[in-house]
């Protein structure tokens, strides 16, 4: 019940914000000045016009008690935006930022792509360059939409690494197999072929427990607040998204 009222409160606030601010930028945390807002609005509108999507930037000073991807997703779902869109949420109280995609652009902004953009924003976010991070978000999103099948340098590295590793293994198996076929000489270390059948007789056997050692290792748990994966918002809409701490 408590969660329900919190959600209602959240939605009311959201709509207030939607009505109060511009079309794309909801800067409750006052991270941007007017000039910066105008630049971002202009850039975002260019992307929106080109791809018929909504692109939203949301900032907040209110602590969100949960997965902040849900916070951004619910804002988008209940904000009257197009079904296809992308939102960057920065929560200054949680010290987390998130990117969530909705609708069919999840094909472009899947979890891997979102992770890639989140990683690219990590440095400006940690250094407090929020405007720079938002600009990067818009430009990187545009680049992803312009060339949806472009591989990142990480992807290329992964392809090269996995292909070389597999090729080395296959080549090693090929070489070892053919070298082993060339060995038609082997030293005899045993006389197994000359054991008289059924002559083996055990006269004594005993297994003794001696001692035991117990090794204890602390399980390392990641302290990072990173999350990524597909999920459903409280509206039931499916999203892809990730978040990072800063």
């Amino acid at each position: 019940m408590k969660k329900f009222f919190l959600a209602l409160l959240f939605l009311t606030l959201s709509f207030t914000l939607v009505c109060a601010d511009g079309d794309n930028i909801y800067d409750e945390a006052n991270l941007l000045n007017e000039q910066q807002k105008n630049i971002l609005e202009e850039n975002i509108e260019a992307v929106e016009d080109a791809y018929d999507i909504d692109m939203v930037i949301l900032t907040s000073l209110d602590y969100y008690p949960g997965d902040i991807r849900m916070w951004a997703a619910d804002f988008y779902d209940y904000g009257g935006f197009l079904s296809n869109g992308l939102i960057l949420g920065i929560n200054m109280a949680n010290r987390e930022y998130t990117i969530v995609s909705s609708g069919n652009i999840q094909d472009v902004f899947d979890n891997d792509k979102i992770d890639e953009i989140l990683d690219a924003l990590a440095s400006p976010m940690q250094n407090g360059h929020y405007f720079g991070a938002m600009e990067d978000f818009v430009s990187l999103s545009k680049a992803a939409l312009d060339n949806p099948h472009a591989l990142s340098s990480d992807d290329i590295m992964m392809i090269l690494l996995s292909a070389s590793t597999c090729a080395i293994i296959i080549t090693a198996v090929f070489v070892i197999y053919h070298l082993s076929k060339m060995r038609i000489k082997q030293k005899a270390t045993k006389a197994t072929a000359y054991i008289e059948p059924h002559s083996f007789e055990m006269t004594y056997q005993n297994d003794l427990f001696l001692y035991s050692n117990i090794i204890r290792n602390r399980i390392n748990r990641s302290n990072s607040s990173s999350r990524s994966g597909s999920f459903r918002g409280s509206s039931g809409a499916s999203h892809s998204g990730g978040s990072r701490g800063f």
Partner: protein
Amino acid sequence: MAEITAYKCPNCGADIPFDPHAENLKCSYCDTEFPVNTLKEYGSAIEEKSDTYVWQSHSGEKMDLSVDEYICPSCGGAVAMTEEKAAGVCPYCGSAIILNAKVEEELKPDIIIPFAIDKDEAYAALKKELSGKFLLPADFKNHRFFDKIQGLYVPYWLFDCTADCEASFRMTRTRMWSDGQYRYTKISHYLALRRGQMAFDKVPVDASLKLDEELLESIEPFDYTKAKAFDMAYLAQNNADIRQEEADACEPKANKRIHESMIAALQSTIIGYDGTSLQNSHIAFNDGKMAYAFLPVYLLSRTYKNKVYTFAINGQSGKVAGDLPYDYPKLFLYGALVFIVSFLLIGALAYFFLV
């Protein structure tokens, strides 16, 4: 027997003082506690005992061979031949051999295994073995060197015995669990004591110094059920290698093979552990007897790029052994080709998967 004053700790190897009244003893170095009986068994298991290899001497019965000894001026190999066969090439290196001396008396073999396959079958076995060897140079594979194949009775010492072996093994069993905060690994250490006996029948050790030991071991085993009492008539068909090693020189090789087989048999009875390693062993032979035998081997040598490659073929089973030359440029070329093709294929697959 010496009075026990201390046990050895199975964990750290430190001395644990003997206490006749205690049921359990604790190592003061590693704090591990052991029942006294366990320490006694462990102490007995690690005690060094000398192995006992006793072989009855061979009768050493000589016979009138009346054959000629031919030697190879190239490699020094010696072959016994009857007068009717007094011509040919060295079975070890393929060079021409020359008459050296008359062999009047030689140790009489107790048994001989006649050749069961002829030269054609031996050569066919060799060709079959060489086929499908991708790295074998084509000019080596295709060269006909059938004419040089030679049947040779190789002198062997055969060792019969009943081996009585006791061995101790260290084993471990590992269990892992977690309580959410810590991951625990419990390694339990065990000691297995095994004693058993086993009979060995005619373990062969070649008495030829000229032939590569590993080559002859590779064409084993021989089927002794086809063995016959020695007759000079067999040498009219095939030559014989001249014995160069006496039985006592061959004994350690037979002892080692029998010992290894016994340990493997005892170790095979240890089941249910993660790792097993031999700690100590002691072996004693009973009824150790030896016999002298001529066993049938086809030999074939070929010089290729200034190196002699010798093949041995079991004259009974047709099993082939030998050294082979490698075609290294082919290995490098095809290795590179396999690498490039698999790199491109996997790279393309990974690309389409990611895109």
